[in-house]
Protein backbone atom coordinates (compact mmCIF):
# COMPACT_ATOMS: atom_id res chain seq x y z
CA UNK A 1 0.00 0.00 0.00
CA UNK A 2 2.71 2.41 0.96
CA UNK A 3 4.63 1.66 -2.23
CA UNK A 4 1.47 2.43 -4.23
CA UNK A 5 1.05 5.70 -2.38
CA UNK A 6 4.71 6.59 -2.96
CA UNK A 7 4.46 5.82 -6.67
CA UNK A 8 1.15 7.65 -7.06
CA UNK A 9 2.68 10.69 -5.37
CA UNK A 10 5.85 10.76 -7.48
CA UNK A 11 4.95 9.15 -10.76
CA UNK A 12 4.50 12.29 -12.85
CA UNK A 13 7.86 13.73 -11.80
CA UNK A 14 9.58 10.37 -12.21
CA UNK A 15 8.14 9.72 -15.66
CA UNK A 16 9.04 13.17 -17.00
CA UNK A 17 12.56 12.89 -15.57
CA UNK A 18 12.95 9.37 -16.92
CA UNK A 19 11.87 10.36 -20.43
CA UNK A 20 14.33 13.26 -20.48
CA UNK A 21 17.11 11.07 -19.14
CA UNK A 22 16.53 8.30 -21.67
CA UNK A 23 16.36 10.73 -24.60
CA UNK A 24 19.60 12.43 -23.58
CA UNK A 25 21.51 9.21 -22.86
CA UNK A 26 20.25 7.67 -26.09
CA UNK A 27 21.67 10.65 -27.91
CA UNK A 28 25.12 10.42 -26.27
CA UNK A 29 26.64 7.78 -28.63
CA UNK A 30 26.07 10.22 -31.47
CA UNK A 31 28.68 12.43 -29.83
CA UNK A 32 31.22 9.64 -30.22
CA UNK A 33 30.07 8.88 -33.74
CA UNK A 34 32.41 11.46 -35.22
CA UNK A 35 35.36 9.79 -33.43
CA UNK A 36 34.20 6.43 -34.65
CA UNK A 37 34.40 7.53 -38.26
CA UNK A 38 38.03 8.63 -37.93
CA UNK A 39 41.19 6.47 -38.07
CA UNK A 40 41.63 2.72 -38.28
CA UNK A 41 38.95 0.27 -37.25
CA UNK A 42 40.37 -0.79 -33.85
CA UNK A 43 41.52 2.66 -32.79
CA UNK A 44 38.34 4.39 -33.83
CA UNK A 45 36.21 1.94 -31.88
CA UNK A 46 38.29 2.43 -28.75
CA UNK A 47 38.17 6.20 -29.12
CA UNK A 48 34.43 6.18 -29.66
CA UNK A 49 33.93 3.99 -26.61
CA UNK A 50 36.03 6.31 -24.48
CA UNK A 51 34.19 9.41 -25.58
CA UNK A 52 30.89 7.65 -24.99
CA UNK A 53 32.01 6.52 -21.51
CA UNK A 54 33.15 10.01 -20.54
CA UNK A 55 29.92 11.54 -21.81
CA UNK A 56 27.74 9.04 -19.97
CA UNK A 57 29.67 9.36 -16.71
CA UNK A 58 29.75 13.17 -16.95
CA UNK A 59 26.05 13.38 -17.57
CA UNK A 60 24.85 10.27 -15.77
CA UNK A 61 26.47 10.87 -12.39
CA UNK A 62 25.01 14.36 -11.77
CA UNK A 63 21.71 13.20 -13.24
CA UNK A 64 21.53 10.27 -10.82
CA UNK A 65 22.66 12.44 -7.91
CA UNK A 66 19.90 14.89 -8.80
CA UNK A 67 17.36 12.07 -9.04
CA UNK A 68 18.58 10.75 -5.69
CA UNK A 69 18.07 14.14 -4.07
CA UNK A 70 14.55 14.45 -5.43
CA UNK A 71 13.46 10.93 -4.58
CA UNK A 72 15.05 11.03 -1.12
CA UNK A 73 13.29 14.29 -0.26
CA UNK A 74 9.93 12.66 -0.93
CA UNK A 75 10.72 9.89 1.55
CA UNK A 76 8.90 8.88 4.68
CA UNK A 77 10.28 11.83 6.68
CA UNK A 78 8.25 14.19 4.52
CA UNK A 79 5.13 12.78 6.21
CA UNK A 80 6.02 14.97 9.19
CA UNK A 81 6.08 18.11 7.05
CA UNK A 82 2.78 17.18 5.40
CA UNK A 83 1.19 16.52 8.79
CA UNK A 84 0.16 13.03 7.70
CA UNK A 85 2.55 11.09 9.92
CA UNK A 86 -0.08 10.69 12.65
CA UNK A 87 -2.45 9.08 10.17
CA UNK A 88 0.27 6.87 8.73
CA UNK A 89 1.65 5.67 12.05
CA UNK A 90 -1.78 4.76 13.36
CA UNK A 91 -2.08 2.13 10.62
CA UNK A 92 -1.32 -1.36 11.92
CA UNK A 93 2.19 -1.76 10.60
CA UNK A 94 5.57 -1.56 12.23
CA UNK A 95 7.29 1.75 11.68
CA UNK A 96 10.15 0.01 9.94
CA UNK A 97 7.70 -1.22 7.31
CA UNK A 98 7.04 2.36 6.21
CA UNK A 99 10.75 3.23 6.27
CA UNK A 100 11.83 0.26 4.16
CA UNK A 101 8.80 0.22 1.85
CA UNK A 102 9.37 3.87 1.03
CA UNK A 103 13.11 3.45 0.64
CA UNK A 104 12.86 0.30 -1.47
CA UNK A 105 10.34 1.86 -3.84
CA UNK A 106 12.58 4.88 -4.36
CA UNK A 107 15.66 2.71 -4.80
CA UNK A 108 13.82 0.52 -7.30
CA UNK A 109 12.78 3.61 -9.24
CA UNK A 110 16.36 4.81 -9.27
CA UNK A 111 17.56 1.42 -10.50
CA UNK A 112 15.00 1.37 -13.30
CA UNK A 113 16.07 4.89 -14.30
CA UNK A 114 19.72 3.86 -14.51
CA UNK A 115 19.01 0.65 -16.39
CA UNK A 116 16.79 2.35 -18.95
CA UNK A 117 19.26 5.19 -19.43
CA UNK A 118 22.23 2.85 -19.96
CA UNK A 119 20.20 0.50 -22.14
CA UNK A 120 19.01 3.37 -24.31
CA UNK A 121 22.55 4.58 -24.72
CA UNK A 122 23.84 1.09 -25.47
CA UNK A 123 21.10 0.49 -28.02
CA UNK A 124 22.07 3.63 -29.90
CA UNK A 125 25.75 2.64 -29.81
CA UNK A 126 24.94 -0.81 -31.18
CA UNK A 127 22.79 0.77 -33.87
CA UNK A 128 25.59 3.10 -34.92
CA UNK A 129 28.49 0.68 -34.76
CA UNK A 130 26.61 -2.51 -35.63
CA UNK A 131 28.72 -4.09 -32.90
CA UNK A 132 27.44 -5.89 -29.79
CA UNK A 133 30.90 -6.72 -28.48
CA UNK A 134 30.91 -4.00 -25.90
CA UNK A 135 28.17 -5.51 -23.71
CA UNK A 136 30.39 -4.86 -20.66
CA UNK A 137 29.35 -1.29 -21.10
CA UNK A 138 25.99 -2.21 -19.61
CA UNK A 139 27.74 -2.58 -16.24
CA UNK A 140 28.06 1.22 -16.26
CA UNK A 141 24.67 1.01 -14.58
CA UNK A 142 26.35 -0.27 -11.41
CA UNK A 143 28.49 2.78 -10.52
CA UNK A 144 25.77 5.19 -11.60
CA UNK A 145 23.23 3.38 -9.46
CA UNK A 146 25.51 3.20 -6.43
CA UNK A 147 26.29 6.90 -6.69
CA UNK A 148 22.59 7.77 -7.04
CA UNK A 149 21.70 5.40 -4.19
CA UNK A 150 24.21 7.05 -1.84
CA UNK A 151 22.72 10.49 -2.50
CA UNK A 152 19.18 9.10 -2.36
CA UNK A 153 19.73 7.29 0.94
CA UNK A 154 21.54 10.25 2.50
CA UNK A 155 18.65 12.54 1.51
CA UNK A 156 16.12 9.98 2.74
CA UNK A 157 17.82 9.96 6.13
CA UNK A 158 18.22 13.73 6.33
CA UNK A 159 14.55 14.19 5.42
CA UNK A 160 13.56 11.92 8.31
CA UNK A 161 16.02 13.63 10.63
CA UNK A 162 14.82 17.13 9.79
CA UNK A 163 11.18 16.01 9.36
CA UNK A 164 11.05 17.95 6.11
CA UNK A 165 11.90 17.08 2.52
CA UNK A 166 13.05 20.58 1.67
CA UNK A 167 15.42 20.91 4.63
CA UNK A 168 16.58 17.33 4.18
CA UNK A 169 17.39 17.97 0.54
CA UNK A 170 19.35 21.13 1.32
CA UNK A 171 21.38 19.46 4.06
CA UNK A 172 21.98 16.39 1.98
CA UNK A 173 23.20 18.48 -0.94
CA UNK A 174 25.55 20.32 1.38
CA UNK A 175 26.91 17.11 2.87
CA UNK A 176 27.35 15.52 -0.54
CA UNK A 177 29.30 18.49 -1.81
CA UNK A 178 31.50 18.31 1.31
CA UNK A 179 31.97 14.56 0.73
CA UNK A 180 33.24 15.36 -2.77
CA UNK A 181 35.38 18.39 -1.94
CA UNK A 182 36.93 17.26 1.33
CA UNK A 183 38.88 14.29 -0.11
CA UNK A 184 40.02 16.56 -2.94
CA UNK A 185 41.30 19.18 -0.52
CA UNK A 186 43.00 16.56 1.66
CA UNK A 187 44.65 15.04 -1.40
CA UNK A 188 45.93 18.42 -2.57
CA UNK A 189 47.13 19.47 0.85
CA UNK A 190 48.51 16.27 2.38
CA UNK A 191 48.56 13.80 -0.52
CA UNK A 192 46.30 11.43 1.38
CA UNK A 193 43.58 9.57 -0.51
CA UNK A 194 40.28 9.60 1.32
CA UNK A 195 37.37 7.59 -0.02
CA UNK A 196 34.88 9.57 -2.07
CA UNK A 197 31.60 8.48 -3.65
CA UNK A 198 33.13 9.21 -7.04
CA UNK A 199 35.50 6.24 -6.54
CA UNK A 200 32.77 3.94 -7.81
CA UNK A 201 32.89 5.63 -11.20
CA UNK A 202 36.21 3.86 -11.88
CA UNK A 203 33.98 0.94 -12.80
CA UNK A 204 33.24 2.71 -16.05
CA UNK A 205 36.90 2.31 -17.06
CA UNK A 206 36.66 -1.39 -16.34
CA UNK A 207 33.79 -1.50 -18.81
CA UNK A 208 35.72 0.06 -21.64
CA UNK A 209 39.47 0.09 -20.99
CA UNK A 210 41.23 -3.26 -21.31
CA UNK A 211 43.16 -4.24 -18.18
CA UNK A 212 41.39 -1.73 -15.91
CA UNK A 213 40.34 -3.04 -12.50
CA UNK A 214 36.80 -3.03 -11.21
CA UNK A 215 36.61 -0.91 -8.02
CA UNK A 216 35.11 -3.75 -5.96
CA UNK A 217 36.02 -2.29 -2.57
CA UNK A 218 34.63 1.14 -3.38
CA UNK A 219 31.46 -0.31 -4.89
CA UNK A 220 30.77 -2.60 -1.94
CA UNK A 221 31.78 0.07 0.55
CA UNK A 222 29.54 2.79 -0.86
CA UNK A 223 26.71 0.30 -1.34
CA UNK A 224 26.92 -0.45 2.36
CA UNK A 225 26.92 3.28 3.10
CA UNK A 226 23.77 3.58 0.97
CA UNK A 227 22.18 0.77 3.00
CA UNK A 228 23.28 2.26 6.32
CA UNK A 229 21.15 5.37 5.86
CA UNK A 230 17.75 3.65 5.71
CA UNK A 231 18.84 1.59 8.69
CA UNK A 232 19.64 4.81 10.54
CA UNK A 233 16.28 6.17 9.36
CA UNK A 234 14.57 3.13 10.84
CA UNK A 235 16.26 3.64 14.20
CA UNK A 236 15.32 7.31 14.11
CA UNK A 237 11.74 6.67 13.04
CA UNK A 238 11.14 3.97 15.63
CA UNK A 239 12.15 6.33 18.40
CA UNK A 240 10.42 9.43 17.08
CA UNK A 241 7.68 11.02 19.17
CA UNK A 242 4.77 11.96 16.96
Amino acid at each position, binding site marked *: *MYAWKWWRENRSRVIVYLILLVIITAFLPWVSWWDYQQGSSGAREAAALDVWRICLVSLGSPAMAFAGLGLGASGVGEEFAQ*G*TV*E*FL*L*TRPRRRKYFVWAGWATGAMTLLIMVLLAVLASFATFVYLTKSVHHWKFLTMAVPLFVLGAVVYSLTYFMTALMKSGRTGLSLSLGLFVIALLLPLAVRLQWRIDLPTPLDVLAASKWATVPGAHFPTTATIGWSLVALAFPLATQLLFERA*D*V
Partner: protein
Amino acid sequence: MSEMMITTDELTKHYPQVRAVDGLNLRVPPGSVYGFLGRNGAGKTSTIKLLLGLTRPTAGAARVLGLDPRRDRVAILERTAYVSENKRLYEWMTPVELLRFTRGFYTQWSDEAVAKYVRRLEIPLQQPFKTLSLGNRTKVYLLLALAQRADLLILDEPTSGLDPVIVDELLRVLAEGHLAEGGTVFLSSHQLSEVEQIADWVGIIDQGKLLLEAGLEDIKNEFRLITAAGEGLPAFGPPQVVSAVQAGAFWKYVVARDAEAFAARLQQQGATITDVSPLNLRQIFLALTRKEEPCMPGNGGERTAAVSSSI
Protein backbone atom coordinates in the same frame (compact mmCIF):
# COMPACT_ATOMS: atom_id res chain seq x y z
CA MET B 1 -17.12 -6.29 34.83
CA SER B 2 -15.08 -7.71 31.99
CA GLU B 3 -11.62 -6.44 31.16
CA MET B 4 -11.36 -2.69 30.67
CA MET B 5 -10.77 -1.43 27.13
CA ILE B 6 -8.31 1.16 28.37
CA THR B 7 -6.51 1.36 31.69
CA THR B 8 -3.70 3.66 32.65
CA ASP B 9 -1.63 3.43 35.76
CA GLU B 10 0.08 6.63 36.85
CA LEU B 11 0.66 7.38 33.18
CA THR B 12 3.02 10.32 32.82
CA LYS B 13 4.49 12.21 29.91
CA HIS B 14 6.82 15.11 30.50
CA TYR B 15 8.20 17.35 27.77
CA PRO B 16 11.08 19.71 28.56
CA GLN B 17 8.76 22.64 29.29
CA VAL B 18 5.54 20.96 30.30
CA ARG B 19 4.01 18.05 32.18
CA ALA B 20 1.52 17.03 29.51
CA VAL B 21 0.22 13.97 31.37
CA ASP B 22 0.80 13.70 35.07
CA GLY B 23 0.03 10.44 36.86
CA LEU B 24 -3.14 9.61 34.96
CA ASN B 25 -5.33 6.70 36.06
CA LEU B 26 -8.09 5.98 33.55
CA ARG B 27 -10.56 3.10 33.36
CA VAL B 28 -12.62 2.83 30.19
CA PRO B 29 -15.25 0.07 30.38
CA PRO B 30 -16.08 -2.04 27.30
CA GLY B 31 -19.09 -0.96 25.28
CA SER B 32 -19.06 2.51 26.77
CA VAL B 33 -18.79 5.96 25.28
CA TYR B 34 -16.14 7.60 27.41
CA GLY B 35 -16.10 11.37 27.20
CA PHE B 36 -12.57 12.56 27.88
CA LEU B 37 -13.00 16.19 28.76
CA GLY B 38 -10.52 18.94 29.29
CA ARG B 39 -9.66 22.47 28.32
CA ASN B 40 -7.28 23.20 25.45
CA GLY B 41 -3.84 21.97 26.45
CA ALA B 42 -5.15 19.88 29.33
CA GLY B 43 -3.33 16.77 28.08
CA LYS B 44 -6.06 15.00 26.11
CA THR B 45 -4.16 14.61 22.84
CA SER B 46 -0.96 13.65 24.64
CA THR B 47 -2.87 10.93 26.48
CA ILE B 48 -4.29 9.60 23.22
CA LYS B 49 -0.84 9.57 21.63
CA LEU B 50 0.41 7.53 24.57
CA LEU B 51 -2.49 5.10 24.20
CA LEU B 52 -1.75 4.64 20.49
CA GLY B 53 1.98 4.22 20.96
CA LEU B 54 2.75 7.39 19.01
CA THR B 55 4.84 8.59 21.89
CA ARG B 56 6.42 6.87 24.85
CA PRO B 57 5.54 7.58 28.48
CA THR B 58 8.00 9.17 30.84
CA ALA B 59 6.60 6.97 33.61
CA GLY B 60 3.63 4.77 34.35
CA ALA B 61 1.90 2.37 32.01
CA ALA B 62 -1.14 1.99 29.82
CA ARG B 63 -3.11 -0.99 28.59
CA VAL B 64 -5.32 -0.74 25.54
CA LEU B 65 -7.48 -3.80 24.81
CA GLY B 66 -5.34 -5.50 27.43
CA LEU B 67 -2.16 -4.80 25.45
CA ASP B 68 0.83 -2.59 26.09
CA PRO B 69 1.09 0.26 23.53
CA ARG B 70 4.88 0.21 23.78
CA ARG B 71 5.24 -3.45 22.83
CA ASP B 72 1.99 -4.36 21.07
CA ARG B 73 1.35 -1.22 19.05
CA VAL B 74 0.50 -3.06 15.83
CA ALA B 75 -1.91 -5.46 17.56
CA ILE B 76 -3.65 -2.50 19.21
CA LEU B 77 -3.91 -0.60 15.93
CA GLU B 78 -5.47 -3.59 14.20
CA ARG B 79 -8.41 -3.31 16.57
CA THR B 80 -8.43 0.43 17.19
CA ALA B 81 -9.61 3.17 14.85
CA TYR B 82 -8.49 6.73 15.36
CA VAL B 83 -9.72 10.08 14.17
CA SER B 84 -7.07 12.67 14.87
CA GLU B 85 -7.61 16.24 15.87
CA ASN B 86 -5.77 17.72 12.88
CA LYS B 87 -7.77 15.80 10.20
CA ARG B 88 -4.73 15.82 7.91
CA LEU B 89 -4.74 13.26 5.14
CA TYR B 90 -2.99 13.10 1.79
CA GLU B 91 -4.20 16.25 0.08
CA TRP B 92 -3.96 14.95 -3.48
CA MET B 93 -5.90 11.75 -2.83
CA THR B 94 -9.61 11.51 -3.44
CA PRO B 95 -11.72 9.71 -0.83
CA VAL B 96 -11.78 6.71 -3.18
CA GLU B 97 -7.98 6.60 -3.20
CA LEU B 98 -7.85 7.11 0.55
CA LEU B 99 -10.20 4.15 0.99
CA ARG B 100 -8.08 2.04 -1.37
CA PHE B 101 -4.90 3.01 0.47
CA THR B 102 -6.35 2.39 3.93
CA ARG B 103 -8.26 -0.83 3.33
CA GLY B 104 -5.08 -2.76 2.59
CA PHE B 105 -3.94 -2.34 6.18
CA TYR B 106 -6.95 -4.03 7.75
CA THR B 107 -8.17 -7.61 7.76
CA GLN B 108 -11.60 -6.69 9.13
CA TRP B 109 -12.22 -3.88 6.64
CA SER B 110 -15.85 -3.66 5.58
CA ASP B 111 -16.78 -2.52 2.08
CA GLU B 112 -20.43 -2.77 3.12
CA ALA B 113 -19.79 -0.25 5.87
CA VAL B 114 -18.07 2.02 3.35
CA ALA B 115 -21.04 1.88 0.99
CA LYS B 116 -23.46 2.47 3.86
CA TYR B 117 -21.68 5.47 5.35
CA VAL B 118 -20.83 7.06 2.01
CA ARG B 119 -24.56 7.14 1.30
CA ARG B 120 -25.48 8.15 4.81
CA LEU B 121 -22.93 10.96 5.07
CA GLU B 122 -23.16 12.01 1.41
CA ILE B 123 -19.40 12.03 0.97
CA PRO B 124 -18.11 13.28 -2.41
CA LEU B 125 -15.82 10.44 -3.43
CA GLN B 126 -14.10 11.87 -6.47
CA GLN B 127 -12.91 15.23 -5.17
CA PRO B 128 -9.30 15.57 -3.98
CA PHE B 129 -9.12 15.77 -0.20
CA LYS B 130 -7.61 19.26 -0.34
CA THR B 131 -10.76 20.62 -1.97
CA LEU B 132 -13.13 19.22 0.66
CA SER B 133 -14.71 21.36 3.36
CA LEU B 134 -13.76 20.72 6.98
CA GLY B 135 -17.08 18.96 7.47
CA ASN B 136 -16.44 16.59 4.57
CA ARG B 137 -12.86 16.03 5.65
CA THR B 138 -14.12 14.97 9.06
CA LYS B 139 -16.68 12.70 7.43
CA VAL B 140 -13.96 11.03 5.33
CA TYR B 141 -11.78 10.54 8.39
CA LEU B 142 -14.70 9.05 10.29
CA LEU B 143 -15.59 6.84 7.32
CA LEU B 144 -12.04 5.45 7.25
CA ALA B 145 -12.32 4.74 10.97
CA LEU B 146 -15.77 3.13 10.86
CA ALA B 147 -14.89 0.88 7.92
CA GLN B 148 -12.16 -0.73 10.02
CA ARG B 149 -14.81 -2.36 12.22
CA ALA B 150 -12.59 -1.73 15.19
CA ASP B 151 -13.38 -2.72 18.76
CA LEU B 152 -12.26 0.66 20.01
CA LEU B 153 -12.78 4.01 18.35
CA ILE B 154 -10.64 6.90 19.58
CA LEU B 155 -11.84 10.32 18.51
CA ASP B 156 -9.78 13.38 19.27
CA GLU B 157 -11.87 16.55 19.07
CA PRO B 158 -13.79 15.13 16.11
CA THR B 159 -16.32 17.93 15.92
CA SER B 160 -14.17 21.00 16.45
CA GLY B 161 -14.96 23.68 13.89
CA LEU B 162 -18.05 21.91 12.56
CA ASP B 163 -21.54 23.32 12.34
CA PRO B 164 -24.26 21.84 14.58
CA VAL B 165 -25.98 20.01 11.71
CA ILE B 166 -22.84 18.07 10.79
CA VAL B 167 -22.05 17.44 14.46
CA ASP B 168 -25.51 15.99 14.97
CA GLU B 169 -25.13 13.87 11.84
CA LEU B 170 -21.77 12.48 12.96
CA LEU B 171 -23.03 11.68 16.44
CA ARG B 172 -26.02 9.87 14.96
CA VAL B 173 -23.76 7.84 12.72
CA LEU B 174 -21.63 6.91 15.71
CA ALA B 175 -24.66 5.89 17.70
CA GLU B 176 -26.21 3.88 14.85
CA GLY B 177 -23.01 2.31 13.65
CA HIS B 178 -20.12 1.67 15.97
CA LEU B 179 -22.07 1.79 19.22
CA ALA B 180 -24.96 -0.30 17.96
CA GLU B 181 -22.41 -3.02 17.16
CA GLY B 182 -21.12 -3.00 20.72
CA GLY B 183 -17.95 -1.00 20.11
CA THR B 184 -16.32 1.29 22.61
CA VAL B 185 -15.75 4.98 21.95
CA PHE B 186 -13.13 7.13 23.63
CA LEU B 187 -14.18 10.65 22.77
CA SER B 188 -11.86 13.50 23.61
CA SER B 189 -13.60 16.83 23.52
CA HIS B 190 -14.35 20.10 25.17
CA GLN B 191 -17.76 20.28 23.53
CA LEU B 192 -19.68 19.36 26.64
CA SER B 193 -23.13 19.27 25.08
CA GLU B 194 -22.03 16.66 22.53
CA VAL B 195 -20.39 14.52 25.17
CA GLU B 196 -23.47 14.76 27.33
CA GLN B 197 -25.51 13.65 24.32
CA ILE B 198 -23.77 10.32 23.79
CA ALA B 199 -21.35 9.57 26.63
CA ASP B 200 -22.08 7.25 29.51
CA TRP B 201 -18.74 7.72 31.24
CA VAL B 202 -16.82 10.92 31.75
CA GLY B 203 -13.24 11.68 32.66
CA ILE B 204 -12.18 15.26 33.25
CA ILE B 205 -8.52 16.10 32.88
CA ASP B 206 -6.70 19.31 33.66
CA GLN B 207 -2.98 20.03 33.57
CA GLY B 208 -2.39 16.36 32.87
CA LYS B 209 -4.22 15.17 35.97
CA LEU B 210 -7.51 13.34 36.11
CA LEU B 211 -9.86 15.42 38.22
CA LEU B 212 -12.90 13.23 37.94
CA GLU B 213 -13.96 9.91 36.47
CA ALA B 214 -17.58 8.87 36.82
CA GLY B 215 -20.63 7.54 35.04
CA LEU B 216 -22.69 10.32 33.48
CA GLU B 217 -25.83 9.00 35.14
CA ASP B 218 -24.07 9.08 38.50
CA ILE B 219 -23.12 12.67 37.84
CA LYS B 220 -26.68 13.61 37.01
CA ASN B 221 -28.21 11.64 39.87
CA GLU B 222 -25.65 11.98 42.62
CA PHE B 223 -23.55 15.11 42.17
CA ARG B 224 -24.82 18.09 44.12
CA LEU B 225 -23.76 21.64 44.79
CA ILE B 226 -24.19 22.52 48.42
CA THR B 227 -24.17 26.20 49.30
CA ALA B 228 -23.63 26.85 52.98
CA ALA B 229 -23.17 29.93 55.16
CA GLY B 230 -21.38 29.93 58.48
CA GLU B 231 -18.16 30.48 60.37
CA GLY B 232 -15.24 28.08 60.32
CA LEU B 233 -16.61 25.69 57.74
CA PRO B 234 -14.13 23.10 56.43
CA ALA B 235 -12.09 23.75 53.30
CA PHE B 236 -11.43 20.00 53.17
CA GLY B 237 -14.21 17.49 53.09
CA PRO B 238 -14.56 13.75 53.09
CA PRO B 239 -13.52 11.92 49.90
CA GLN B 240 -16.86 12.51 48.19
CA VAL B 241 -16.31 16.28 48.25
CA VAL B 242 -14.88 17.06 44.83
CA SER B 243 -14.23 20.71 45.49
CA ALA B 244 -14.81 23.39 48.07
CA VAL B 245 -14.40 27.11 47.78
CA GLN B 246 -15.41 30.18 49.72
CA ALA B 247 -17.34 32.79 47.74
CA GLY B 248 -18.03 35.79 49.93
CA ALA B 249 -20.00 34.74 52.97
CA PHE B 250 -20.81 31.38 51.47
CA TRP B 251 -19.02 28.09 51.02
CA LYS B 252 -19.78 26.09 47.91
CA TYR B 253 -19.15 22.37 47.91
CA VAL B 254 -19.40 20.02 44.93
CA VAL B 255 -20.24 16.63 46.37
CA ALA B 256 -20.04 13.41 44.36
CA ARG B 257 -22.47 11.40 46.54
CA ASP B 258 -24.23 11.37 49.91
CA ALA B 259 -24.92 15.09 49.65
CA GLU B 260 -27.58 14.95 52.37
CA ALA B 261 -25.19 13.35 54.82
CA PHE B 262 -22.53 15.94 54.11
CA ALA B 263 -25.07 18.77 54.40
CA ALA B 264 -26.18 17.38 57.74
CA ARG B 265 -22.58 17.27 58.88
CA LEU B 266 -22.13 20.93 57.91
CA GLN B 267 -25.26 21.82 59.81
CA GLN B 268 -23.83 20.12 62.87
CA GLN B 269 -20.86 22.46 62.55
CA GLY B 270 -23.19 25.45 62.66
CA ALA B 271 -23.68 26.01 58.96
CA THR B 272 -26.88 27.19 57.36
CA ILE B 273 -27.54 25.25 54.18
CA THR B 274 -29.00 27.67 51.67
CA ASP B 275 -29.15 25.41 48.67
CA VAL B 276 -28.59 21.83 47.56
CA SER B 277 -28.93 21.56 43.80
CA PRO B 278 -28.11 19.02 41.10
CA LEU B 279 -25.36 19.76 38.62
CA ASN B 280 -25.10 19.17 34.91
CA LEU B 281 -21.89 18.21 33.14
CA ARG B 282 -21.06 21.77 32.18
CA GLN B 283 -21.32 22.95 35.77
CA ILE B 284 -19.15 20.10 37.00
CA PHE B 285 -16.60 20.78 34.28
CA LEU B 286 -16.44 24.46 35.11
CA ALA B 287 -16.26 23.73 38.80
CA LEU B 288 -13.28 21.49 38.29
CA THR B 289 -11.33 23.34 35.66
CA ARG B 290 -11.93 27.08 36.02
CA LYS B 291 -8.99 28.91 37.44
CA GLU B 292 -10.36 32.40 38.05
CA GLU B 293 -11.17 31.53 41.64
CA PRO B 294 -8.41 30.44 43.99
CA CYS B 295 -8.03 26.67 43.87
CA MET B 296 -8.71 24.65 46.94
CA PRO B 297 -7.44 21.19 47.64
CA GLY B 298 -10.17 18.64 48.00
CA ASN B 299 -10.75 14.92 48.08
CA GLY B 300 -7.68 13.92 50.00
CA GLY B 301 -5.51 16.43 48.20
CA GLU B 302 -5.68 14.57 44.90
CA ARG B 303 -8.16 16.84 43.23
CA THR B 304 -7.59 20.50 43.00
CA ALA B 305 -10.51 22.46 41.87
CA ALA B 306 -12.38 25.67 42.19
CA VAL B 307 -16.08 26.22 42.31
CA SER B 308 -17.16 28.97 40.02
CA SER B 309 -19.32 31.66 41.49
CA SER B 310 -21.59 31.09 38.51
CA ILE B 311 -22.68 27.74 39.87
